[in-house]
């Protein structure tokens, strides 16, 4: 009787701590338009001003920013992107590492995280587990030429969606 009812429950509690919490852990941004350290410093301080950013390091020679997020804090990728634009620069590419737990996905699959929806376009894997790099495909997330490849697919997924749904939807790929 004990083993029939309680062992599975006990087993579940034992298993939980071994499963990493689904969350963003870091991001990498390629920054466009930067040429001097004063400009780079403006971008780095804007990124580090975000409450959920633990550390931002912008390589002055490659203009690539690596951002570590604080654990257990809600990460808003839009604010990350906006920080770069606030400093007066734009983004060549946006990548973020997210921890998945055996997440099965398909083309146009949507997963939700902290009030935002993330829609996959043309994923190359069917199951995601552990730290996985997501490439963001929004207009402000990558350079114009790269965005034009995805623009039509993104537009199709937005048909029939409300303004609020559009504002909280990110398009990503692997």
């Amino acid at each position: 009787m004990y083993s029939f009812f309680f062992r599975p429950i006990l087993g579940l509690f034992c298993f939980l701590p071994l499963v990493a919490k689904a969350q963003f852990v870091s991001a990498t941004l390629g920054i466009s338009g930067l040429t001097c350290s004063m400009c780079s410093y403006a971008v780095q301080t804007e990124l580090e001003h975000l409450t959920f950013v633990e550390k931002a390091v912008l390589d002055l020679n490659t203009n690539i920013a690596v951002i570590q997020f604080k654990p257990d804090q809600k990460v808003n990728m839009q604010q990350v992107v906006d920080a770069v634009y606030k400093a007066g620069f734009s983004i060549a590419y946006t990548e973020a590492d997210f921890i998945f737990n055996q997440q099965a996905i398909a083309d146009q699959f949507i997963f939700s995280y902290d009030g935002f929806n993330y829609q996959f376009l043309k994923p190359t894997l069917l199951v995601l587990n552990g730290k996985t790099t997501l490439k963001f495909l929004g207009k402000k997330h990558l350079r114009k030429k790269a965005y034009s490849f995805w623009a039509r697919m993104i537009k199709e997924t937005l048909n029939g969606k409300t303004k609020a749904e559009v504002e909280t939807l990110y398009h990503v790929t692997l």
Partner: protein
Amino acid sequence: MIRFFFIALIFWTLSAKAQELYPYAEAASTQPKGVPGIRFTYENYKEIPSQRARNYGGVRLVYGITENLTAGISITGSNHHLKKFPADLSYFFQKHHQKGFQQNPYQVEGLIASLKYKFLNLDGHQRHFRMAVMGAAAKSFIPHDGAEPRLGDNSAIDGSWIATLLIKRFAVSLTNGYLFPFKYKDESQGYSFKSGNCRYVNLSFGYRLIPNAYSSYSNLNVNLYLEFISANYDKATMTVNGQPYSFDIYQNADKYIYNSLQAGTYTEVRPSIQLIFYSTTRVEMGVASPIFNQSYLHFYPMYFVSIHKNFFKAKK
């Protein structure tokens, strides 16, 4: 003139990253959103023939309202002008650069407010092309006594467009603007004085001397700049008790004073060096020299120093 354009050509071809934090011209780039900055400017030259020092200073606060809109407010002061035109205009227009003429007091000259809006931003890897429009208005408290106007010396409005191109080894900025001075009125003496309307073009080049490669934000940056300032302005007009006042009678007196009241066109060059400390503070120094005619706002050589500090956001 050819020599200076040859130097400019060298700037185009030198293999180093360029800079666009020009000491004189405003680049099309704007202040980061929510980031304030403060700028101190100082200019010095010797008046001819008196050899008295003429000093000018300004404090400018800038703030990024949005990533595309920067507001600025400045206060300027100098010993370039009298508090008001003297009663004896004839003596003034013949002698005010002579040693025997009364020394100008140090005083606040004017307040300037400006807005710059960046309307085009094309960014690439270590390159960008930006365009902006800029408007400024000034309230002056002193009687400017020359044909060429200056914001702060004159109550005036100014409008310009700016295009800045930066491609790794090359940075250039072009500014084209119009400056419309208002009439200065001294009702107690029945005087009015109006400087000429001015059209100007600035062409600025920048070059990063060191470091070749960055290792940290505390690396000292040394940048070289070469800026060409060209202006064309109308003659000054003056009335006394409503009647036109002719400057022709001063043609054979001090040539410099007479020329400063006439319409003019000139180009001057301003080479300068800039040091950037800890990626937050710029110190610039340079000199202005004429290459085609001359400006009558100042004598040559004119030396200038400026310090600019940005107060970037703190980590949360």
